[in-house]
């Protein structure tokens, strides 16, 4: 540049000699007035840009960058939170499922226990009823035996009288008499028994039917 600058005025002066002084149409020759104006104008512009424009722009850019980065961070945090909440819900759900299964299991075993208990109680009841029925039957039987025993004396006396009254010719006849007596006794005994124990007989029939019907009703 220095070479050109040094050469230019000389050349220009040589060529533009007819106009007198320097020829300002010469392209490579910096015009002093324009250099001064350029220097001042660019200086002013630089000052304005450096003081009033660039700091504000840089601040705005920093702010924008901050906003964008902050936004990203916020979004990341929200996502992490959502993830944590989801995890929590999942564990809670699993817990609830396990709890429900446990409760169901418990109810089932409880039900089974109740059924078994009921069954036990029902069978115990049935046993108890059977027991009391058989005891009653035993008592009836005892009563029947007792009454029979008291009747048996009379009956024996009656039989003996008959035997004595009849002529005892042969043993065949004798056995026939005994046979007839026994059949007579057999035919008459129900009426006799009923006649002797009218109060005991209905209870006997009721208790014999009782265990089967009463137990069947209770068990289910």
């Amino acid at each position, binding site marked *: *540049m*220095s070479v050109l600058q040094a050469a230019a005025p000389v050349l220009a002066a040589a*060529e533009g000699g007819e106009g007198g002084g320097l020829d300002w*149409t010469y392209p490579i*020759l910096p*015009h002093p007035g324009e250099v001064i104006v*350029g220097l001042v104008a660019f200086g002013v*512009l630089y000052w*304005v840009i450096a003081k009033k424009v660039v700091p504000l722009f840089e601040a705005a850019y920093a702010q924008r960058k901050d*906003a964008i980065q902050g936004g990203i961070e916020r979004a990341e945090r929200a996502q992490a939170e959502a993830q944590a909440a989801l995890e929590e819900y999942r564990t809670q759900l699993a817990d609830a499922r396990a709890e429900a299964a446990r409760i169901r299991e418990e109810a089932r075993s409880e039900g089974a226990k109740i059924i078994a208990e009921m069954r036990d109680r029902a069978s115990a009841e049935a046993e108890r009823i059977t027991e009391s029925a058989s005891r009653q039957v035993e008592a009836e039987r005892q009563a029947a035996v007792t009454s029979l025993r008291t009747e048996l004396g009379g009956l024996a006396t009656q039989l003996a009288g008959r035997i004595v009254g009849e002529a005892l010719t042969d043993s065949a006849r004798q056995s026939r008499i005994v046979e007839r007596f026994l059949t007579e006794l057999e035919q008459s005994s129900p009426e006799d028994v009923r006649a002797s124990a009218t109060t005991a007989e209905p209870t006997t029939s009721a208790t014999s039917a009782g265990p089967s019907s009463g137990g069947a009703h209770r068990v289910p």
Partner: protein
Amino acid sequence: MPYVLASAGFTPPGPSSFWHPLIGDGAFAVTRSMFVVVATVIIIGLVMTMTAKRLQLVPTKGQFAVESLYNIARNQIGVDFIGEARLRPFLPLLVSLFLFILLNNLAGIIPFVQFPSMSRFGYVVVLTLIVYVVYHYVGLKKKGFGGYFRGFLPPGVPIWLVPVVYPLELLTYFVTRPLTLSLRLFANMFAGHTLLLVFALGGEYLLLHSGNIFLQATSVASFAMFIAMTFFELLIQFLQAYIFVLLTAYYIADAMAEEH
């Protein structure tokens, strides 16, 4: 003048087309380009300060346009070459250089202004001198006198080549760089505007002064070329502003670089 062709009646545009003294004459005449320069400084200053005062987080259309211009100087050039960490002190220089050169170049095709002030060498010299001083100052401040001058030598040069390479490097740093930086911008604007003038004045001459119907018809082609070249100029004007700032950033980064 040797460069003005004196053909029959038509004076082709030449360097004299760029000399427009409006007030006075000589070394301190007030020229047409001065008005352009002052107007661009006022426009840039007003637009930028107005935008900077109401910057919003979410940009409006106007703010977005200004921001994209600002970002060309800041991100595409500054961050790429100098690096974000060391950019801040040079950012005003890059931004103001870019806007100043861009708007002054564009003045070449803005209707009724139509004068690229960078086709006057004086302004380019001023800008180049500023860049020249800045990058040498930065290098000297960063590395010291000895370090800076040692840093001119590219690494890995054989010792016997140093006497050849070192003067060439010195020439690059002190002569070639400012020379090409200033001449590139100036000559592009100068040549581009001359090209436009050739088509515009040629078309005008053919249309008005040729006096021949066939030659008058060819003026249409000349004006069409003028319009096409105007769009081409738009590209060149933007590109030259970009290149000037890019090279400025490159020189500054190179002066600060640890190794060549």
